[in-house]
């Protein structure tokens, strides 16, 4: 392996450089890419699918496609992370479509926000707030959910989202705006439970 490849610290090397090192046979690059990319991809897939086990399967499959693509990767053509998110998005979309074909769990079976005396008196603990947001996200159309998660949870810019979703920037803006309006409406009846109902 060339000496300049060995000199660069895997923890700080860019994704693309690590992928080139992986393709050149460096096992440390595989470990570094796995540690860096899997947690991010898993978080995204879990929020898209609302199911941890399915999200893990999706991430393993997406990473497998990355390993296979590494030898033919053309430098500068795409960012590794954007490429990976795109694959995860497509795999999640496939799974969501498949779910809809099955006798699906109704929306009202989605995790409910805790209610009753505990919610009224002490407010919801963080896990419950997250469950409420996840349930609201699950209720969105797939494309709106993808756009809003990428923008507001994963922190992507609109041009990056456009690349991941293979749509125009205006379409991204429209999807995220509609998603936020829908989320606000879904969560409107639960503002006190979610801890922002009282006047500031």
């Amino acid at each position, binding site marked *: *392996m060339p000496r300049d490849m060995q000199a660069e610290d895997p923890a700080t090397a860019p994704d693309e450089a690590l992928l080139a090192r*992986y*393709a*050149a*046979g*460096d*096992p440390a690059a*595989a*470990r570094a*890419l*796995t*540690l860096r990319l*899997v*947690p991010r991809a*898993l*978080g995204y897939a*879990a*929020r898209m699918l609302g199911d*941890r086990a399915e*999200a*893990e399967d999706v*991430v*393993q499959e997406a*990473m*497998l496609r990355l*390993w*296979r693509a*590494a*030898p033919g990767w053309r430098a500068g053509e795409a960012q590794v992370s954007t490429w990976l998110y795109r694959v995860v998005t497509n795999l999640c979309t496939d799974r969501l479509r498949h779910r809809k074909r099955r006798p699906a769990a109704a929306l009202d079976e989605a995790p409910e926000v805790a209610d009753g005396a505990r919610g009224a008196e002490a407010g919801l603990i*963080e896990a419950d*707030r*997250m469950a*409420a*947001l996840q349930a609201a996200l699950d209720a969105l159309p797939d494309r709106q959910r993808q756009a809003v998660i990428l923008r*507001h*949870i994963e*922190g992507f810019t609109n041009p990056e989202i456009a690349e991941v979703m293979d749509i125009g920037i205006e379409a991204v803006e429209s999807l995220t705006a509609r998603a*936020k309006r829908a*989320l*606000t*409406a879904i*969560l*409107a009846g639960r*503002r006190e439970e*979610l*801890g*922002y*109902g009282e*006047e*500031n």
Partner: protein
Amino acid sequence: MARKTDEMQGREGLEDLFAAMREERVPPSDALMARVLADAMAHQPRPDPQPALKPGQGAAAEAGQGLWRRLAGLFGGAGALAGMGTAAVAGLFIGFVQPVGLGVLEEAVLGTPLETVELIPSVETLFAGN
């Protein structure tokens, strides 16, 4: 303080929820990391000691390079292969041309024309000094 509208409260609340979800980690299980790494090792190309082909070099060039590499390996490296090639060309040259000029060289060095050359000395020569 003026009351915030429902819409404003909703928007702010949503931003708070987004922020909380951004902070919430979804740590991968050890089993997932192990599966991903196993896939990585299974599909990792073997290290190639030769420099990569430049863009534009096709499969034929690659096949040719492979043949030369294998031949060089057979004869002990590219240097040995080149030496053998030079010797073969020199032998062909001497076989085709008539080396008449060698007679001049032989007379200049030895003083007389040389009919035969004894490349392997006889036993008598070895014991001649005793």
